[in-house]
C-alpha cells in the first residue's frame, strides 16, 4: 500500500468546527505542544505563553475564550496568573483550567479557590480534556445566557420606567391646582395619578394603586392611562371610563394583579364633586372653614381588573364648598412602618388632617410622613393627592375663532338657507339613551367629518348641553330650578337617574349640516325632542351667582354659538357653531 493510498486514521481527523481561541500557559514545552496539538484537533485556535507575564499580555492581545494554565511556573505562578486574568476579563466569562502534575487534594482545592474553573492532570488524557472542554463551554454558554437575559431585564425595566414616567408626566393640569406626593418603594412606583379636564370643564382625577410594582404595574398602567386620557377628553363619564379600564385590565393583566382606584370628578365651579372609590382607603373631605373632616367616602366597589363585568359603578355625589379639600391617599400612606415596626395608622393620619389650617394640609401630611418614617425605607409605594375645591379655568374659549364664512353676514338668512357639504340626520330612541352617552359618540363623528380637533372642547360643550337640555327637560321633564342650591344639585342628579331608568318612550331627532375647509367652517345643529317643551319666549340668561346651576349649561352653549334659538313649543333648538 503506497503512502498516498493509506486510509485516514485517527491521527489526522478532520478539524472540528471553529470553537474559539485557547491560551495555553506552561513553562515546559512538551506540555505546550501536546495541549496545543490536541486543542487544534478540537477546533480551537491556540496561543502559547511560557510564563505569567507573557500570558497576561497574550490574554489582553488575543482575547482567548478559554485559558489553560500550569500551576508550577518560575516567576508568577499559575494561581497569580489566574487571578490577573479573571480580573481583566471583567464581566466576560473566560473559563480557566489549571494544568497540574500535583494531584493532592489541597492543590486541587487551591486551583478552584484561585478562580480556576476546573483542572487537568498531567500527562494529559485526550478523552478527559475533551470532556472538560465541553463542560467549560456549557458553563460559558449558561453564563452568557444569564448575562444576556440580565441585560435584557435591565433594559426592559429601564424602558418600562421611562414609558411609565413619561406617561404619567404628561398631565396637562396647571401646577398649583392640586398637590401630589409620590414616593416609590422600588425602582418605580406602582401608583399612578392622572389628571385631565373633560370637554365640559370638569376635572377628572384618577389615583390608582396596582398590586405589585415594576414591570407588572407598568404593563397595566399603559392601557389605563390611555383610556383615561382619551375617554375623558372625548367627554365620557367616569363610570364609562372606569368600566372600560376594568375591561381592558381584565383582558390584559394576569390573575392576581389588579388596580385599586379613586376616581374624582370635580365640577368646574368647585362646588360639587362626585367620586367612585374602588378599593382604596376612605377619601376624606376637610372643611375649609372648620378644618374638620366633613365627608368620608369609603370603597364601595371592587378594584379594577377582577371581575369581567363591572356593573353598578355609581359616582357618589358629594357637596363641597370652595376652600374645602379632598384628600386621596393610597393604603401605603397609613400603612407606613417606622423603624420600630409601628404603623402610621388612621388616627395619626386624621390628626394630621384636622390639626391646623386646611390650606396647609399637604405640607402637614408630607412633614408628618417624613417625621414618622425617619430614615426607614418604604416597603410600599406612597401616593397622596390633595385637591382644593376651587373653581378652575375651563377650556380656553378665548381661543375659539368666531367668524362667518364670506358673504354670510346675514345670520338669519344663513341659518335658514345656507346649505353645507353634508347633512347628517339621526333619531335616537329613549331606550338607547339609557345605555349610551350620546355626546361623545356624536362628537367623534363630527370631529372626523369636519377635521376640527382644536374646536372639539367648545363643540362638545355645545352638543352635550343641547342634548342635556333635550333629555333632562324635554324627555325627563326635570325642573332645573331644583339645582339652585348645592344640595339640590345632588338631588337633581339622583332624580335624573331615577327618571331615566323609568323612561319607556320618547326620542330625539338630531340633524347636522355643515361645511369645513382649511381650519374654518360652520355647523348647524337642530335637535327636536318629543317632550313637553318650555316657555322659551321668556328664557333669559341667569343674572346672579345664586342661579348658579339652573340652565347654566344652555347659556354657556349660547355663548359659544353664533346663533341659538328655540322653536315650536320649546322642544326644538337650532344652533349654529362657526369657527
Amino acid at each position: 500500500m503506497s503512502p498516498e493510498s493509506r486510509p485516514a486514521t485517527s491521527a489526522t481527523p478532520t478539524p472540528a468546527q471553529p470553537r474559539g481561541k485557547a491560551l495555553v500557559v506552561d513553562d515546559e514545552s512538551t506540555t505546550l505542544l501536546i495541549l496545543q496539538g490536541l486543542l487544534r484537533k478540537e477546533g480551537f485556535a491556540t496561543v502559547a505563553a511560557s510564563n505569567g507575564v507573557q500570558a497576561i499580555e497574550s490574554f489582553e492581545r488575543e482575547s482567548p475564550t478559554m485559558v489553560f494554565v500550569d500551576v508550577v511556573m518560575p516567576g508568577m505562578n499559575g494561581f497569580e496568573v489566574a487571578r490577573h486574568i479573571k480580573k481583566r476579563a471583567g464581566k466576560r466569562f473566560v473559563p480557566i483550567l489549571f494544568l497540574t502534575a500535583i494531584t493532592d487534594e489541597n492543590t486541587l482545592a487551591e486551583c478552584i479557590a484561585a478562580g480556576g474553573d476546573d483542572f487537568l492532570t498531567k500527562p494529559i488524557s485526550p478523552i478527559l480534556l475533551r470532556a472538560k472542554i465541553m463542560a467549560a463551554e456549557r458553563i460559558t454558554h449558561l453564563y452568557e445566557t444569564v448575562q444576556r437575559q440580565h441585560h435584557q431585564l435591565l433594559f426592559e425595566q429601564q424602558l418600562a420606567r421611562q414609558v411609565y414616567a413619561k406617561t404619567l408626566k404628561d398631565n396637562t393640569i396647571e401646577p398649583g391646582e392640586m398637590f401630589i406626593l409620590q414616593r416609590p418603594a422600588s425602582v418605580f412606583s406602582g401608583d399612578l395619578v392622572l389628571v385631565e379636564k373633560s370637554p365640559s370643564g370638569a376635572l377628572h382625577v384618577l389615583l390608582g394603586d396596582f398590586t405589585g410594582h415594576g414591570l407588572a404595574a407598568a404593563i397595566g398602567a399603559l392601557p389605563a392611562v390611555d383610556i383615561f386620557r382619551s375617554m375623558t377628553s372625548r367627554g365620557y363619564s367616569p363610570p364609562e371610563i372606569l368600566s372600560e379600564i376594568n375591561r381592558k385590565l381584565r383582558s390584559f393583566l394576569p390573575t392576581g394583579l389588579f388596580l385599586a382606584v379613586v376616581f374624582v370628578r370635580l365640577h368646574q365651579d368647585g362646588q360639587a364633586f362626585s367620586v367612585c372609590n374602588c378599593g382604596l382607603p376612605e377619601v376624606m373631605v376637610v372643611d375649609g372653614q372648620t378644618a374638620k373632616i366633613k365627608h368620608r367616602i369609603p370603597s364601595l366597589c371592587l378594584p379594577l381588573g377582577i371581575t369581567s363585568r363591572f356593573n353598578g359603578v355609581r359616582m357618589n355625589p358629594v357637596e363641597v364648598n370652595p376652600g374645602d379639600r379632598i384628600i386621596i391617599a393610597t393604603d401605603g400612606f397609613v400603612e407606613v412602618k417606622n423603624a420600630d415596626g409601628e404603623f402610621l395608622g388612621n388616627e395619626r393620619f386624621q390628626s394630621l388632617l384636622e390639626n391646623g389650617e386646611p390650606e396647609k394640609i399637604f405640607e402637614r401630611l408630607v412633614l408628618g410622613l417624613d417625621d414618622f418614617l425617619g430614615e426607614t425605607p418604604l416597603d410600599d409605594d406612597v401616593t397622596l393627592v390633595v385637591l382644593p375645591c376651587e373653581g378652575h379655568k375651563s377650556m380656553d374659549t378665548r381661543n375659539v375663532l368666531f367668524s362667518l364664512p364670506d358673504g354670510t353676514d346675514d345670520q338669519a338668512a344663513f341659518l335658514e338657507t345656507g346649505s353645507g357639504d353634508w347633512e347628517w340626520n339621526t333619531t335616537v330612541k329613549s331606550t338607547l339613551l339609557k345605555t349610551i352617552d350620546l355626546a361623545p359618540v356624536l362628537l367623534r363623528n363630527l370631529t372626523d367629518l369636519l377635521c376640527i380637533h382644536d374646536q372639539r372642547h367648545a363643540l362638545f360643550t355645545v352638543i352635550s348641553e343641547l342634548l342635556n337640555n333635550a333629555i333632562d327637560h324635554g324627555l325627563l321633564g326635570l325642573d332645573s330650578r331644583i339645582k339652585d342650591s348645592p344640595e339640590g344639585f345632588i338631588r337633581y342628579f339622583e332624580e335624573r337617574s331615577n327618571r331615566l331608568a323609568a323612561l319607556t318612550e320618547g326620542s330625539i331627532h338630531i340633524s347636522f349640516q355643515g361645511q369645513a375647509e382649511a381650519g374654518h367652517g360652520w355647523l348647524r345643529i337642530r335637535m327636536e325632542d318629543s317632550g313637553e317643551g318650555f316657555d322659551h319666549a321668556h328664557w333669559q340668561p341667569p343674572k346672579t351667582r345664586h342661579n348658579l346651576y339652573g340652565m347654566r349649561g344652555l347659556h354657556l352653549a349660547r355663548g359659544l354659538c353664533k346663533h341659538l334659538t328655540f322653536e315650536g313649543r320649546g322642544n326644538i333648538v337650532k344652533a349654529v357653531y362657526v369657527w
Partner: protein
Amino acid sequence: MNPDKTRKAVLVFDADILMEQVMQDLDLFREVLKAFQTDIPAHFSQIREGIATGQTGLAYRAAHSLKGAARNVGALELAELTGELEQRLQDENLEADTVRLIVDAEAAMDRLCVQLDVLGL
C-alpha cells in the same frame, strides 16, 4: 541508602504513552520528542546551578518541569528518577544522595537519547 537497590527496573522509553496523548498523530509525536530533547540540557543545568548557588527553589522547579516532560513523552526511567529528585529538592534535602540522583538521571537521559536515536526519533 542506595537508590539503585530500592528502585525497580523500569522501561527507558514507552512510545505508547505519548502516542496516546497525541492521538496517534505521528507528526505531533515527533515534534514533541524533538522539543523535549532540545529542552533537557537546560533543565539539567538549572538543577545543577540551583544546587550550586543554594537556590533550591530554582532546582526544584527545573526538576519538576523535567519530570513532567519525561512523563509526557513516556521516558519512564527518567521520570521516576527526576520525580524522586523533585521530592528531595522540595524537602531541601541536599545530601550526597541527591547529587548522586542527578548523575543517575543524566545517565538515564543518555540511555533515552540512544534509544530515540535508534528509533530515528
